[in-house]
């Protein structure tokens, strides 16, 4: 049952060709066999998954089943799951069992989906390689000596290796799209505000957005239908009428104008990634789309703006980890101040501490205007670039990352190098637009390459439709490692 899509498994369950217990038992066996080599899961909830599978089978027999009844999924380990370990990839939360469910978790549970466990990630979602996890690096199934991308690396690998058909992720600066690209699967970061952040452990609140990772665009649409929606518990959740994100899957591409930002095809883009992306664009043209060159002149400012705004918000969000109400508390201290400082020094990893320090500095007295306000002004310029460009085209296309997956350890000690690799994804979060990654062939070394599609606000259905048409015409998304 490995590598089948959610949509196909959903039909087999509905026709009672398989039971959820069979499906979940098979899923758990595959995780048990392959996870030691990949390290994609931090927690496997065997008992909870089997109990949920039995409940789904009973509901399917009684005709009361939800639309996702019995389907296996996994949650990135920053979604709070009631009664199940929720670590955020950190020593700080290494023994934190959440007392409540995130909105996304309860929505998917209500639809009948069965969570088999929690996937590995960069600590507090800070990283692009999944090497910043307290629970060890995740390995790319296409080449286990290489990074899977991050921060939703465990979710991407769980899907790419065929352990689960779909998983949840979050994307603050590329954390769904980049690991999806590096692992050869599909992932979408929705418009900021359509997926509730309630119960999603916060990194940078004005940028964080949850979304699905799956093998196909069709499966992403199916999952997004159950993840999105207004939630009053998230103060930035947008109050909009529910929509069907699968409604444009079969829309023909004739007449579609695709904008190609010249800044996304300049120096720094690896030749083999360029070739793969151009091949995918040629396929889209064959399907009737036209391409037009556009410009996003402030692209280069996305990196400095992001690396001010995200650490600033992180330093504020992560101040809640004080060793008092939850999380790690140091063993020895002489007073309250030392208890805070030592608990945080022990509980956070190196990259998290760096971002908290950067954030603390840029928000400190006398520096706020020069850094945080300045970065928010650049954010406006970046968003205006997209607004302008999207008057000349319907969607924007380009690479997701400058290269295919790189060797583990290559950038582990060089944060600045790592930040520069986020150049094509950060601006989408700053603008709050939806962005998607879909497989676009392979690098010279046989590693997956992703095509990024960026849409206007609330244009998820169209992005998923373009990706679906491309997937109907190509087989890149069907290739599996090994």
């Amino acid at each position, binding site marked *: 049952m490995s590598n089948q899509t959610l949509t196909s498994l959903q039909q087999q369950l509905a026709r009672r060709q398989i039971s959820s217990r069979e499906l979940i038992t098979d899923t758990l066996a595959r995780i048990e066999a392959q996870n030691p080599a990949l390290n994609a899961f931090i927690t496997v909830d065997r008992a909870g998954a089997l109990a949920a599978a039995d409940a789904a089978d009973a509901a399917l027999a009684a005709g009361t089943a939800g639309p996702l009844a019995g389907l296996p999924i996994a949650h990135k380990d920053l979604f709070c799951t009631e009664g199940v370990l929720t670590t955020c990839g950190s020593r700080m939360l290494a023994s934190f069992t959440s007392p409540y469910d995130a909105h996304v978790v309860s929505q998917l549970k209500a639809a009948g989906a069965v969570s088999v466990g929690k996937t590995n990630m960069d600590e507090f979602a800070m990283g692009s390689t999944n090497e910043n996890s307290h629970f060890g690096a995740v390995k790319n199934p296409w080449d286990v000596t290489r990074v899977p991308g991050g921060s939703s690396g465990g979710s991407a690998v769980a899907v790419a290796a065929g352990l689960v058909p779909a998983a949840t992720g979050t994307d603050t600066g590329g954390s769904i799209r980049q690991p999806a690209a590096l692992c050869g699967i599909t992932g979408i970061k929705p418009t900021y505000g359509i997926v509730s952040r309630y119960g999603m452990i916060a990194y940078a609140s004005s940028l964080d957005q949850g979304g699905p990772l799956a093998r196909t665009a069709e499966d992403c649409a199916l999952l997004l239908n159950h993840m999105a929606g207004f939630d009053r518990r998230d103060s930035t959740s947008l109050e909009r009428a529910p929509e069907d994100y699968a409604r444009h899957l079969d829309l023909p591409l004739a007449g579609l104008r695709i904008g190609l930002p010249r800044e996304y095809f300049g120096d720094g883009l690896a030749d083999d990634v360029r070739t793969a992306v151009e091949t995918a664009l040629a396929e889209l043209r064959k399907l009737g789309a036209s391409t037009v060159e556009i410009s996003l002149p402030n692209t*280069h400012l996305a990196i400095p703006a992001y690396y001010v705004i995200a650490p600033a918000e992180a330093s504020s969000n992560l101040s809640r980890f004080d060793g*008092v109400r939850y999380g790690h508390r140091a063993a020895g201290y002489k007073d309250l101040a030392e208890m805070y400082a030592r608990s945080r020094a022990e509980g956070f990893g190196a990259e998290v501490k760096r971002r908290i320090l950067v954030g603390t*500095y840029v928000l400190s007295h006398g520096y706020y205007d020069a850094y945080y306000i300045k970065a928010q002004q650049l954010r406006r310029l970046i968003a205006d670039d997209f607004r302008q460009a999207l008057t000349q085209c319907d969607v924007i296309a380009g690479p997701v990352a400058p290269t295919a997956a790189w060797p583990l350890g290559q950038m582990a000690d060089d944060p600045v190098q790592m930040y520069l690799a986020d150049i094509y994804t950060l601006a989408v979060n700053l603008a709050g637009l939806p962005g998607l990654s879909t497989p676009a062939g392979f690098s010279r070394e046989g590693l997956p390459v992703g095509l990024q599609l960026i849409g206007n606000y609330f244009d998820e259905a169209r992005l998923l439709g373009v990706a679906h048409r491309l997937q109907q015409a190509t087989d890149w998304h069907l290739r599996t490692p090994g």
Partner: protein
Amino acid sequence: MSLTLEQVDRIARLARIELTPADADATRAKLDGIFGLIEQMQAVDTTGVAPMSHPQDVVQRLRADTVTEGDRREAFQAVAPEAEAGLYLVPRVIE
């Protein structure tokens, strides 16, 4: 821009993160690299550009000042490092 060790110590104190003297120097070098990247912002003239904090420029929703959550004190204190009789325990702060 180059941070001094005193500045790094001050930031760490503000952030409530203990930094050993051995860590401070390595941290300073890494932070210098990051601020080098960030400083590119200062070359851009942003006079008159309104700062953007939310993509849709929405305002915070208001709600009625009423209780919406039930009492789950026990469940929430069960995950605390030290709690007793409904209280979170911390080192003595008042002598």
